[in-house]
Each structure stands twice: as structure tokens, then as C-alpha cells.
């Protein structure tokens, strides 16, 4: 029988939530790495028992962890992230040049085919790859070096590379997104890169239609249709039908189009989910009502999903890496909040129940569907 494993990274440790395919009864294990910030955990699609975790601390820096038994036991892995060559500078908040300096790993993306290959998106923004199971890391420096790097500026949360999408049909194509630079694509396995931000408009930057400088919060893709991308930008929910060559807004009837997370139904490529957040200065749901919005039309037409979610006095946030789906027949949707709740829906969002209510602030949620 199928089962699911939900990997939860929090401000004070990692947790693993497990259930059978019914997704009614849950077993909670953790905290792992108690007291440390776990920005992200991810499992290898090629070997579900191979997990990677990014463990960070303002005191002690970056630690990488690896499990070969589905999270029962962990071993420290390589944690040296050295920029390739002379790092150069990017722009600081005040526009002055500032040297690139590694701070932490925000996101891990294991290869679709090789358990030992994993990508890491880091702050200050860069993409690293390991091909030896996280023992060593090497920068794909064509991203920072393609030309616009010196003009990148950090977003409020830091200058982080937070999204990595591997094209399942074209192993040479990778999409990444950086706050606050925008989206980028390689078509040669990571050697060369270019910005893919045409159609994005950001009113808070000097040139609202600039090639780079957009605060992209998250991009999602359905594996059956990798040229179609969905984006939650700082403001605006966007869609591309041509691999990021151009974008159009699909915010439609959303009550606010600010937010962080976005994801796609596992079995319906035109069904997408966002969690609208009031604004960039008030990081909580509108009117104290936690609502996931679902579009079954690939955008523009959205419906509020409220059953089982708090509809009064709720002022949590849902961060960019804190929503995920499973791939069971009845698609499960999961998200975590800064209030420590992890909500699950086993029916594509119609009804929600909290798996746990009182974890530390949730930074990331990933789901493994195990068969």
C-alpha cells in the first residue's frame, strides 16, 4: 500500500510526519537536529530513502545532513560552499557593491535519476551541485557570471536562490529563482544561464519591466508539462507557457495576489494552489482567515478553500517552501505555517486537517509518496 512521508523543516529542528495512503493517522518523529534551523529537507526521487537536509545556525553556520534510511539515522555531509573563482560583488540594499558571501542553503533539489546528485540553492545567491551524495559541492558559476549578477540585490529575507526546477524531459534544462533578481534558465546543464523575466512587472523597482530585479517568491511546474510554469511573485501570480520566455498575470479574482507559496496538483496540471497573504508589510492572511485558493483553470479563476482551516483570528504566514503535494490518486496537499501548524488535505484541498498544531515556525514542507 502507498504511504506518504512529509518532511518538515522548522526554526528549531526537523520533523518527519508519516501516514499510510489514507492520510488519516499520522506518526510524528523528531525533532531531528533540535535547536537548529532546518531550511529544507528533500528526498531523492531515484531512491526515496536518500534524504538531504540543510541545517543552519547564525552561530555555527551551515551543516549538511544526509540519511540513507528514510530519515531514521543521519550523517553529517560536506558543508563547504566555496564560490568559484573570485566571487565579485552584488548590490547591497543601499546600492553599494558588496562581496558575495555564503550564508546558508535555502533549498535542496535532488536529481530525478541519481541519488548522489543534488543541487543546492544558497544565499548569497548561487547554485551548487554535488555528485557524490553531498560530500563535496561545486558552484555552477555560469549563473552568477552570465552578466547581470553584479546588479542583483537582496530581498527582505536575503539574496537567496530558493527555487530549483529540473525539467524531467530535458536533462539539460534547469530553472531557478532568486530573491530579488528573478528567474533564470539554463539549457546546457548549468553551464550558461539567462534571465527569463519578460512580462514581469514590479512597481517597486526603478524600471518596472527590468530584465532582472524582480522579487520572485516561488515557481512551480507539473512534471508532465515542464514548459508551463506558475509563479508567485512578491505581488502577482504569473504563468508562462513557453518555458519562461514570457509571463502573463493570472491573479484574476484573488483577494490579494501577494504571497509566497505556489504548487500544482499532482494529477491535474491546470490545478494550482496559492495562499494569499495580505501584503508585503503585513505577512498574514486577509481578515484573519487562513484560506488556500485553488484554480482549476490554470489561473485567473480562483476558489477559496476554507473547510478545516481557521477562519478567524489567524495571523500566521506560509513561507515559500512550505507547500507541497503528494502524487496519490486523490492528490494530497500540505502546507506549514509560521505558527507551527502543518495542514493536510487528502482530497485536493476540499477539506483540511492539521497533522500537528504546535511545531516551531515551519520553514519548509516536502512530501514523498512511497509505494
Amino acid at each position, binding site marked *: 500500500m502507498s504511504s506518504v512521508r512529509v518532511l518538515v523543516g522548522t526554526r528549531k529542528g526537523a520533523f518527519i510526519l508519516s501516514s499510510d495512503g489514507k492520510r488519516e493517522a499520522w506518526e510524528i518523529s523528531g525533532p531531528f*537536529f*533540535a*535547536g*537548529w534551523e532546518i531550511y529544507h529537507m528533500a528526498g531523492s526521487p531515484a531512491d526515496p530513502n536518500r534524504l538531504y537536509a540543510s541545517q543552519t*545556525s*547564525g*552561530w*555555527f*553556520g*551551515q*551543516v549538511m545532513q544526509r540519511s540513507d534510511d528514510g530519515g531514521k539515522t543521519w550523517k*553529517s555531509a560536506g*558543508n*563547504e560552499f*566555496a564560490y568559484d573563482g573570485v566571487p565579485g560583488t552584488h548590490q547591497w540594499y543601499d546600492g553599494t557593491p558588496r562581496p558575495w558571501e555564503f550564508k546558508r542553503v535555502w533549498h535542496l533539489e535532488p536529481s530525478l535519476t541519481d541519488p548522489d546528485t543534488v543541487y543546492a540553492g544558497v544565499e548569497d545567491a548561487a547554485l551548487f551541485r554535488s555528485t557524490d551524495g553531498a560530500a563535496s559541492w561545486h558552484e555552477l558559476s555560469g549563473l552568477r557570471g552570465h552578466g547581470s549578477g553584479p546588479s542583483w540585490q537582496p530581498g527582505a529575507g536575503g539574496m537567496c536562490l530558493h527555487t530549483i526546477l529540473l525539467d524531467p524531459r530535458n536533462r539539460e534544462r534547469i530553472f531557478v529563482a532568486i530573491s530579488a533578481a528573478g528567474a533564470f534558465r539554463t539549457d546546457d546543464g548549468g553551464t550558461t544561464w539567462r534571465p527569463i523575466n519578460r512580462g514581469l512587472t514590479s512597481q517597486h523597482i526603478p524600471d518596472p519591466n527590468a530584465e532582472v530585479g524582480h522579487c520572485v517568491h516561488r515557481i512551480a511546474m507539473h512534471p508532465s508539462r515542464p514548459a508551463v510554469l506558475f509563479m508567485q511573485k512578491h505581488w502577482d501570480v504569473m504563468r508562462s507557457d513557453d518555458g519562461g520566455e514570457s509571463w502573463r498575470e493570472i491573479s484574476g479574482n484573488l483577494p490579494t495576489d501577494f504571497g509566497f507559496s505556489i504548487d500544482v496538483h499532482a494529477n491535474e496540471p491546470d490545478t494550482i494552489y496559492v495562499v494569499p497573504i495580505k501584503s508585503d508589510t503585513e505577512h498574514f492572511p486577509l481578515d484573519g482567515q487562513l484560506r488556500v485558493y485553488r484554480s482549476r483553470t490554470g489561473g485567473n479563476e480562483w476558489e477559496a478553500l476554507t473547510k478545516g482551516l481557521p477562519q478567524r483570528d489567524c495571523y500566521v504566514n506560509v513561507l515559500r517552501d512550505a507547500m507541497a503535494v503528494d502524487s496519490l490518486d486523490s492528490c494530497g496537499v500540505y502546507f506549514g505555517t509560521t505558527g507551527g501548524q502543518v495542514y493536510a488535505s487528502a482530497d485536493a484541498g476540499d477539506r483540511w486537517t492539521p497533522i500537528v498544531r504546535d511545531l516551531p515556525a515551519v520553514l519548509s514542507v516536502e512530501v514523498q509518496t512511497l509505494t
Partner: protein
Amino acid sequence: MIRVVLPTHLRALARIGGETTLDVDGRATQRSVLDALEAAYPMLRGTIRDHVTQQRRPFVRFFACERDLSHEPPDAPLPDAVATGAEPLLIVGAIAGG
């Protein structure tokens, strides 16, 4: 023999119960003690000092014999009491943040 006391998070990371003892080649200095510590516990590399620059992380401090040695040069000799094992070298995470 050098005695070293790590902060709680690094003891957990290195799976050390209490203080650890190290044999250090040559003179006991911050650098030689940290070299020996990282050789014995490779998972600690990068957590106390930067991988590349070898600079102490800003929120990590070195105390011994009721003195703050954090700003001493890395190759300066540690106090005799540390070098002889009479006193431990305390590696401390600064009390800051939440």
C-alpha cells in the same frame, strides 16, 4: 593533552557527551587545537571558523582561565594551564538572539 568544552549544539553535532580531550602536535595554540579538533570530528569543520579564511565565526568565543582569548592571534600560545590540561579551553556560542 588538551581539554576542550564545546557549546551544546556542537556537542550534539559531534556526538560528544561532555568535554573532549585532544592530543595536539607541537605548541598549543588556537589554530593547533582547532586543527586537532576538526581532525577528530570532521563534522565540526566550518562551524567554529570559516572553511576558507579560517576566521572565527563572529558569534563564537574562546575562553580559558577566566580570560577571553577570542581576539588573540590564532598562533599565540594558549595559557600553560590549558596546554597542560589543568584547565579546559571553552568554545562558547555567544548569548544573542532567541
